[in-house]
Structures are given as C-alpha cells and as structure tokens.
C-alpha cells in the first residue's frame, strides 16, 4: 500500500486525491476507522501536519468525520460516495471523450474499444 507522492505538486493536494481515491474505490471500507494521523503520516512518509491538513479537507467534503476522542471515521453515507465517484468518473469520461473525438473516432468504435478493457 505504498503512497506515491510526486515531486512537483504540493504534498497535501496529492494526499487529498489519494485518500479520496481510496475511499471511493472501497480500499477504505465505508464506516470504518482510519489510522491515527501519525500512523497514516508514517505510512505515507509525510509530515503529520500536512496529513492533518488533507484530512480536514476531506472532512469538508463530507467523506470523513472526526470524532474527538476516537479519531477519524470514513463516512457511512454510501450515496455521497457513489455520487462523488460518479462525478469524478464522468469528469474523466468527458475528458477522455474530448481527446478521443479529436482523433475522429466514432462512438460505436469507442464503445468497442472500451468493451475490450478489463474492469
């Protein structure tokens, strides 16, 4: 479960993206408790303050709730997660289609290509 932090973008933004990804794709199960900020930071090899900043960002999005004495929990709002996943996925699809259309390909051909992919 290695965290890949790239060099040229702010660390905390990359943490937000990675945490979001893990919540959306179910790596972090709905409703479960996250590791402590320190342990998460240790796993990701990042500064705890930066990790905290990222977690606060996710709290604002509603993906995480922080309970004072017991720590951070993934939301159990499955609809929120599904909606967010759909939103992000459709952004990617939109971008993808935009690129692919420039090549002059048809919708039918595109769908055929997609069907060949493993999901």
């Amino acid at each position: 479960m290695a965290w890949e932090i790239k060099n040229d973008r702010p660390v905390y933004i990359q943490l937000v993206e990675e945490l979001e990804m893990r919540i959306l794709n179910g790596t972090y199960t709905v409703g479960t408790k996250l590791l402590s900020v320190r342990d998460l930071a240790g796993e990701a090899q990042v500064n705890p303050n930066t990790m905290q900043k990222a977690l606060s960002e996710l709290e604002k999005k509603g993906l995480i709730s922080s309970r004072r004495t017991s720590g951070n929990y993934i939301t159990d709002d499955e609809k929120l997660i599904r909606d967010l996943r759909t939103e992000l996925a459709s952004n990617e699809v939109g971008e993808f289609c935009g690129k692919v259309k420039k090549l002059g390909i048809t919708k039918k051909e595109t769908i055929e290509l997609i069907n060949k992919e493993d999901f």
Partner: protein
Amino acid sequence: MSEILKCTGLTKKYGSLVALNNLDLSVNKGQIIGLLGPNGSGKTTLIKLIAGLLKQNSGELTVNGEKIGINTKKIVSYLPERTYIPDWMRVVDIIKMFENFYEDFNIEKVKTMLDNLGIKFNQRIKAMSKGTKEKLQLILVMSREAQLYLLDEPIAGVDPAARDYILRTIITNYNPEAAVIISTHLIQDIETVLDDVIMIQNGNLKIHKTVDEIREESGKSVDELFREVFRC
C-alpha cells in the same frame, strides 16, 4: 508560547571565517524543519550552537525562552553526525547512561526500537557496523521525550530500508509539543516529511518557506529548487 527556538542576529565566526551571519530564525512547537544547505553553509554550526557545544560571537539564542545551558540540554536531544558512543561499551551500558542522566528517557521506546532493528542489549559497540551504530544513536536520541530534536544528517550513512524506518520513526514520534530540526543534504528522501524548509548559504538565511509553498510557487520540488539555488 508556541515558540521553541529563537535566534536573533546570531553570528558565529571561526577566526576571520564567518560561519553564521546575523541569523534570524524562529521555530514553533509541533514542527518538523529541514535545515538545508551545501557543505560549509553553517548548518552544523547552528546545530552545535543550539546543542551547547559552541558559543556564539553575538546575537541571541534561546530554547523555550532560556539561554543555552544545563536547562536547555535537559530538553534538547542531539544527534551528531559522528559516532559518540565509546567503543568499549555495550548497548546496555549506553542505555543505562542515558537513563541515568536524562529524566525524559523512555526505556520502553528504546526496547521496542532495538527489537525492531534487531539490535541486542549485550552487543559491543566495537563489533557493530557503522550503519548499526548510527541506528543505535538515532534510537537513543528519539527515545528521549525531548522538546527539541536536533538531527544532523540522520539518514546519510544508512541503507534505504533503515532510512524508511528512521523517517517513519521521526513521523510516528511526532509530538505537537516538540519540534524536530533535520539537517541534511539528502533532500529528496525527506522533503515530504518536513513542514518548513530553511536554506542557508554562507551563513545567511536564504529561504524559509513551507514545502508546499515552494512547490506551489515554483512548480518544483524542494530538491530541484535547491539544486537551482545552489548551482555550482
């Protein structure tokens, strides 16, 4: 007061050579700071001044509001670049010594970390490899519940696996009441662990920003910015 370290107009000369020139610096509790600069830039001089091994020529230097002395040595945990444990000692001897002199020494932490790194109590320092000695020193330093940790090149002489362990230890050891100053030239490995970055050149403070500020403003990593700023 959230300030753990404060320098004002700090100057240190070795004869006519100016190692630190009128340095102003402030470090708050709960921060992990990177002290970066080429060799001879004054990093080690600054650290030695804070540790109490040197006296400044002019300027003020306080830790937790106090001048450097016995009281600051009680709350500052220093890891020098060198091996300072006497050769003839065994691991258990140096542990007893730390326990004896430092009230904030946490013996349970030491035992856990020694276990993790496979270092036995009755090993002789003389028989250890350089890497193992460095790991041992780091364990001793990090096992103190100090208020300011000074780490001078903590990962330079260590293999990559141990490097990861050391960085993870620094992170999981995090205490919002304490600060860590890491002096290193291995910026790439350590960048993401830092809050603030302080770059020193020829005894002068060049840059003092957070890692993310640098990345946002310059679009580069701290490592890349460093190479640019200090290009030979």
